């Protein structure tokens, strides 16, 4: 039961991350390495604010803003300075590492004695029977709101343009819009979500660690692919729902593997191998081929 609960909780936290990466990886077709640093950026901002005694709820919008700025930076480097997509993400990722250290003040910050969105007077006032489920309820609420807002956004004119930019930049120009600006906008939204996920993670585990961002992109991409490939048959599911479910399924698989005796040492190796298998078998590359048909 405890295992299930923690899988659900972590899956939901990473679902917000996966929603962000879905925008860059799937919609924009942009391998955005920024996320490896914008995830801990959200956590660093959160650690700073929580220590300063600022209301935990405020950390959510502020860390989103910080992430959005990181995304804009990557976008501007790519679009305006014409640096390759992967490289511009790596440049920002590397630079943000120092920024994160400055923001948090140290490589490790513990927040056990502070109030968070999961630990405050309001939650302590809940009946004892509900309290263990409070985190999962809060997380579900945040994730569902993020998902609904994203669905709504993708149906707007601006959202249509975002989808068109990844699909066919030529068409965006024919519609008299600058595809570069749309890319920058998409990167900022994506990294805002990634940072939000980092912010929640930081409050959930009640500490900030500078290395918590390592492998974020791979983890998110795995969730996106598990969701969109594995649940491909269920046509009634929206892509965003599939991504959320994918994140939970992925976390469940990892937890199960660890429970069955997989050494944490091998976790990344297994993840990488599994990702490769899913991409090849699932035929993620097909999208590109189809586009030129």
């Amino acid at each position, binding site marked *: 039961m405890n295992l299930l609960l923690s899988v659900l909780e972590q899956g939901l936290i990473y679902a917000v991350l996966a929603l962000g990466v879905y925008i860059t990886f799937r919609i924009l077709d942009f391998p955005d390495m920024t996320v490896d640093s914008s995830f801990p950026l959200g956590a660093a901002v959160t650690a700073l604010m929580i220590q300063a005694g600022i209301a935990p709820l405020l950390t959510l919008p502020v860390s989103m803003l910080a992430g959005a700025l990181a995304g804009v930076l990557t976008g501007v480097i790519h679009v305006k300075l014409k640096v390759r997509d992967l490289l511009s993400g790596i440049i920002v990722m590397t630079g943000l590492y120092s920024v994160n250290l400055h923001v948090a003040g140290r490589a490790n910050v513990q927040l056990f004695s502070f109030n968070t969105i999961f630990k405050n007077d309001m939650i302590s006032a809940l009946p004892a029977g509900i309290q263990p489920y409070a985190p999962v309820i809060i997380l579900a609420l945040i994730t569902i709101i993020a998902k609904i807002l994203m669905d709504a*956004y993708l*149906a*707007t*004119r*601006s*959202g*249509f*343009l975002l*989808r*068109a930019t990844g*699909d*066919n930049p*030529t*068409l*965006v*120009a*024919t*519609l*008299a*819009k*600058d*595809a570069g600006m749309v890319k920058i906008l998409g990167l900022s939204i994506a990294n805002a979500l990634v940072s939000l996920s980092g912010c929640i993670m930081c409050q959930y585990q009640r500490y900030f660690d500078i290395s918590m961002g390592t492998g974020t992109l791979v983890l998110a991409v795995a969730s996106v692919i598990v969701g969109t490939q594995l649940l491909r048959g269920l046509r009634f599911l929206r892509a965003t729902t599939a991504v959320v479910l994918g994140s939970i399924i992925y976390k469940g698989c990892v937890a199960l593997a660890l429970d069955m005796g997989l050494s944490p040492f091998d976790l990344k190796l297994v993840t990488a191998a599994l990702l490769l298998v899913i991409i090849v078998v699932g035929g993620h590359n097909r999208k590109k081929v*189809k*586009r*030129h*048909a």
Partner: protein
Amino acid sequence: MLELKNIVKIYQGGTVNETCLFNEFNLTIPDKQFVCVVGSNGSGKTSLLNIICGSIPIEDGAIIIGGKSITAMPEHKRLRRIGRVYQDPSRGTCPSMTILENMSMADNKGKPFNLMPCVNRKKADEYRAMLAQLGLGLEDKMGVMVGNLSGGQRQAMALLMSTMTPIEFLILDEHTAALDPKTAEIIMELTGKIVAQKQLTTIMVTHNLRYAVEYGDRLLMMHQGHLELDISGEKRKGLKVEHLLERFNAISIECGN
């Protein structure tokens, strides 16, 4: 009126492979004229269109619309009043969006792409009527992903989408070249109809000499970056495919192919 003045376009400038395509190229197209452009590969037809749209930079010269220079204007701003259809049917539509979504998006050209919903269900019937005139059965497939349509269907949509909103110019870059003869015929008829209806200034590049003779009121034949032929008015009316072919062969022989 669209004017190209003293256009200089050099490819691979500064290298041993430097080739000067246009040297002091001039062209004036009055409003509402339908210009057909023919010429062999590498004669500068597509470069001409790309220069007008701002898709490629030029070394010197000026592009003037209605007396105002647009030489420094970026591509997407120029395309506000230009509709463009490419040779490749996949460039004019979004494959992972439905027909309705594609049409809605095209309908929003020139308006802000803000947080308003993009699909207006009330307009679906209007789009359906537009699609019905194609006779390709697209009106019953509003919810189908455009990526699942055939090249001809996609090109027909691309043509409709690029001319939905008020524009002044229509740029057609061999837009029937990738289609089978029957579909090409449908697309050409539709093109003629739309141009006449909306009174658009049109530049159509084509390899089909018959279309070049049948459609439009001015014909340009390009060769190595200059105008080999420029026929309009009375002379244009008596023009036959054979005349064009003869001239075409003559310049090809000069080149050695």
